[in-house]
């Protein structure tokens, strides 16, 4: 009973993440790779790498935007990195925000970049919370299944 309830919760969480556009088909591909390969830790590994990467990049961008003279090329390079890793993990919303962010870099608009940074940060934190909940539920389900055996 408890196992079924946990599975329902996880399923509902994943559905809402897809329907809200937080994650896209690439994330689904990663889940399939995990399921087909029978390697339970793969999605957790990639998601963790992504979150660490994103956190580091956001901090670097924030520092660059605080400088009296902003190096927009450097900011753009970091946004490009973040866009790349969000695309690879299937973090759709973050990826789209990065695409808009690059526009502001091209236009060399500090205000535009600061606004885009705020949006990307919020979206990333939201996604990270959901990923963390997802991983916790998966661990609970695994623990429950293990106990049943």
């Amino acid at each position: 009973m408890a196992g079924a309830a946990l599975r329902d919760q996880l399923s509902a969480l994943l559905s809402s993440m897809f329907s809200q556009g937080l994650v896209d088909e690439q994330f689904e591909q990663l889940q399939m790779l995990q399921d087909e390969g029978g390697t339970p830790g793969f999605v957790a590994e990639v998601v963790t790498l992504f979150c660490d990467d994103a956190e580091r990049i956001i901090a670097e961008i924030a520092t660059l935007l605080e400088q009296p003279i902003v190096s927009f090329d450097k900011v753009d390079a970091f946004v490009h990195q973040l866009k790349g890793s969000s695309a690879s993990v299937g973090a759709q919303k973050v990826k789209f925000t990065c695409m808009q962010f690059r526009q502001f870099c091209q236009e060399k608009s500090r205000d535009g970049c600061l606004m885009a940074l705020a949006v990307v940060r919020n979206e990333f934190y939201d996604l990270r919370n959901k990923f963390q909940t997802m991983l916790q539920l998966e661990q609970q389900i695994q623990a429950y299944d293990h106990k049943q055996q």
Partner: protein
Amino acid sequence: MRLLRLRRRRRPCPRRWRWGVAPKAVDRKVVPVAAAAAAAAADEVSNEVHVLAVDDSSVDRAVIAKILRSSKYRVTTVESATRALELLCLGLVPNVNMIITDYWMPGMTGYELLKRVKESSKLREIPVVIMSSENVPNRISRCLEEGAEDFLLKPVRPSDVSRLCSRIRW
């Protein structure tokens, strides 16, 4: 909508792929079980397809490695083209059957790595595949002209890799 991958144009000179050579039937001897098991393990390693994956992004390295390993390929990942060349030239990654590399990396780019590999008499037979998150036609044609086996758009999917690997004769 997925963008079409461009195929490499046929070059005038034929390319021959040299892969790990399988033992001939005449070389197989009858050996005790333990020795046979050890020999089988060694054969497995030397006949396995070995891919060197180069990408500065830890996320992308994890994804490409997983996709390749799920097709039973052996994968060595490195985070820079410079490191990849070092390993290849020093013979620290034996029997590499394919190199798959990101295009844009700090320091040496994947394009530069491609050129160095194709210029080297020791390495030039190894097929090199370029990956990029940007669909830039000039970039793609330059890589193909320089001898890249293929050019994949990121994010790379398992279907991209299986289509690619089914074309290459291991």
